[in-house]
């Protein structure tokens, strides 16, 4: 089983809560979490609905392995229609609340409508209530977290909340749980705010049981943990360096997008890398990194727990930022650092703290600031906009200020909260926006890594590395090495990664396990936990079904094959200016038709009837 088989439906307009059985037929076809919740969403909402209107729904969902001893089995996802992209949004987070919701007895919570006034959902096992949140509105995630804990007098309540940025309409607002883990991408926090839902607070004491075959499950999860422990990335690299282990690697291969992706290598990478986080500071002798912290059930523990130098200009006289909190992961370090040309580790850490404190995606935020810096250098934005602050690339002050503004929606924060695409359009330079389908790029340059360009272009939620992490193969050689500068074979590679990832995202496990695990490692764990027959082949089929279902939703929402594209800067206008990829652009046009073909889609990128039939869509 592993599922609790219970869904909580929360009608925010009515203020009513209702329990319903999980659709097990769908569970058999879509497994859980990303797949299953997306199935619910596409069945229940009009794809053309206003993402920030009451007709959109937001689903918080766990997977069948969430809350079990399977390594990394603590994930949950938020599935909704994105206000940033207008496409499907599925943002995945770790931390502890996923287990807590499941332990309280719920596989997923479906939010619909819009509350007339601010509320938060309190789940204590079967006892689910909507409670007033008027006093929480206008508060940061961290403040709301503290207020809810104090109110319920229970330190073990786990909380996911939105911050002020979401309330102010920032289009890339995140839902932050456990203070510094986030369902970060695609503006899922903005949707939550549009529903007047401030937080979800959960306390589960029922636990997760119903393991179909416990003996097999312990055997499979034990073997899985062993594989993770013995793998160089999950056993050594991630625990000691975090995802930041990639900073120097990616910079060396010339795929480190720099200064709004005008360049592909960052001269300051060494100052904001994992290694730099280990270096004792001059001021207090302590390194930026205090320790690594794990999400629920994770035997890798890539999370960074960091402090900022108390003497740094960003936190002088602000003791509230002197303690430990979530430190820089690679994507954040890149977006806040390299993409803005900022090599000040403390400033990046500060901006990262603020992203967590007020709930917004550091990737989209950093990229948007990078776009603003380019607009500033082009004269489209002036000091009048920036409160007199020099917004040139490399300005740590600009980065810190930008974060403070986006946190509260004050000053230029409203414009920065639009995201790169809308900001650049507003200031007359749409070509400066480094986005796909309106979502900002992550930290791998498609000029130096061809396959990831195709993955970005075709990602169902806009530019994203987590829909098909071909970096594993193209850079790290997992499961086998492919040439990052080669386009041949990348269509098949991207499809394989996308389908497998969709399956992994539906289990309750973390996609970072796939540095070491393949579906052959994961399927036995799912199979032992769940009823039914879960082979690697079936999981791959489920993954492909999910991918096509998402694609169908996007098509119905009004997107077309024309949206499967990359900014011209990357395909034509600006070749890589240094490193192994010097002179290269991304050859998306060579890969895309082949991709549609291997997907079984028409040359316009629409799934054919035959493909739909094969997948039972």
């Amino acid at each position, binding site marked *: 089983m592993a599922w609790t088989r219970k869904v909580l439906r929360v009608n925010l307009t009515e203020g009513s809560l209702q329990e319903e059985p999980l659709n097990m037929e769908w569970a058999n076809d879509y497994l859980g979490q990303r797949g299953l919740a997306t199935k619910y969403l596409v069945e229940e909402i009009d794809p053309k609905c206003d993402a920030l209107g009451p007709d959109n729904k937001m689903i918080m969902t766990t997977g069948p392995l969430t*809350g079990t*001893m399977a390594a990394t089995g603590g994930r949950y996802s938020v599935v909704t229609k994105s206000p940033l992209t207008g496409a499907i949004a599925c943002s995945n987070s770790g931390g502890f609340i996923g287990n807590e919701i499941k332990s309280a007895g719920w596989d997923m919570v479906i939010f619909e409508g819009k509350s007339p006034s601010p509320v938060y959902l309190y789940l204590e096992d079967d006892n689910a209530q909507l409670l007033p949140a008027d006093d929480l509105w206008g508060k940061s995630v961290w403040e709301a977290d503290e207020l809810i804990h104090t109110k319920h007098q229970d330190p073990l309540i786990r909380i996911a909340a939105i911050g002020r940025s979401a309330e102010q309409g920032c289009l890339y607002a995140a839902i932050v749980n456990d203070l510094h883990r986030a369902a970060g991408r695609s503006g899922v926090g903005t949707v939550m705010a549009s529903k007047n839902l401030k937080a979800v607070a959960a306390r589960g004491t029922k*636990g997760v049981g119903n393991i179909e075959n416990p003996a097999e499950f312990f055997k499979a999860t034990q073997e899985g943990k062993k594989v993770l422990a013995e793998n160089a990335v999950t056993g050594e690299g991630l625990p000691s360096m975090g995802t930041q282990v990639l900073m120097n690697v990616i910079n060396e291969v010339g795929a480190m997008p720099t200064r709004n992706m005008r360049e592909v290598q960052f001269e300051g990478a060494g100052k904001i890398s994992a290694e730099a986080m280990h270096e004792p500071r001059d001021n207090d002798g302590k390194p930026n990194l205090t320790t690594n912290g794990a999400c629920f059930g994770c035997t890798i523990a890539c999370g960074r727990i960091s402090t900022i130098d108390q003497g740094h200009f960003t936190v002088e006289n602000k003791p509230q930022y002197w303690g430990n909190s979530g430190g820089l992961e690679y994507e954040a370090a890149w977006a806040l650092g390299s993409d803005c040309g900022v090599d000040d580790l403390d400033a990046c850490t500060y901006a990262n703290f603020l992203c967590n404190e007020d709930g917004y995606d550091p990737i989209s935020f950093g990229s948007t600031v990078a776009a603003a810096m380019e607009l500033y250098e082009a004269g489209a934005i002036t000091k009048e906009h920036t409160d007199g602050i020099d917004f040139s690339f490399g300005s740590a002050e600009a980065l810190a200020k930008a974060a403070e503004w986006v946190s509260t929606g004050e000053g230029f924060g409203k414009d920065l909260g639009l995201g790169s695409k809308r900001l650049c359009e507003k200031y007359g330079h749409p070509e400066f926006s480094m986005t796909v389908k309106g979502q900002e790029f992550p930290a791998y340059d498609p000029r130096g890594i061809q396959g990831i360009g195709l993955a970005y272009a075709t990602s169902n939620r806009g530019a994203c590395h987590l829909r098909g992490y071909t970096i594993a193969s193209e850079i790290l050689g997992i499961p086998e090495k492919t040439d990052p500068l080669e386009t041949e074979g990348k269509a098949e590679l991207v499809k394989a990664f996308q389908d497998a990832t969709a399956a992994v995202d539906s289990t309750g496990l973390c996609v970072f396990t796939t540095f070491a695990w393949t579906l052959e490692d994961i399927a036995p764990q799912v199979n032992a936990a769940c009823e039914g027959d879960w082979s690697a082949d079936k999981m791959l089929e489920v993954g492909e079904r999910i991918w096509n279902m998402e694609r169908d939703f996007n098509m119905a929402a009004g997107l077309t094959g024309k949206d499967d594209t990359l900014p011209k800067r990357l395909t034509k206008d600006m070749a890589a200016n240094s490193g192994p990829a010097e002179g290269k652009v991304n050859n998306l046009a060579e890969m895309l038709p082949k991709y549609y073909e291997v997907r079984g889609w028409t040359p316009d990128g629409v799934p054919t009837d035959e493909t739909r039939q094969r997948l039972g869509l």
Partner: protein
Amino acid sequence: MLRSLQIEPEKCTGCLQCEMACSYHAEGVFNTAKSRIKVFTFHEEGRFVPYTCTQCSEAWCMHACPVEAIVINETTGAKEVIDDICVGCKVCTIACPFGTINYNTETKVTYKCDLCGGDPECAKACPTQAITYVDSDHGGLERMRAHAAQNLPQEGA
């Protein structure tokens, strides 16, 4: 030679595998709310501290029990709650100065670490060896005990 749980918090990442292993062994479900070992998080300081019963020789819980429901397992040295005898009076829960014996409002008896009969699941589940099961005269354990018991009056000894 008796063995004991040795906890080295500096190695802990806060993943709660120990809590899941413990609760599955004791309750048959993954349920951190019912774990006998708890990981305490010091967020500001960036620290995780697993903690459970040290099977202290004073055995405050055992001495306070009015119905002899807490007994020593002679093989492991663990102080074990006999569910059938425990009446649920909770005196042990207030007597234990370490806060490591708790009352279960559903079963209406108290529960504590029993070293899983000599093969503690938490130690086996810990991915970073922050929890190990070692010979009792291990130096680190002595230090931990000394810390745990500092300032407590040494009654009856």
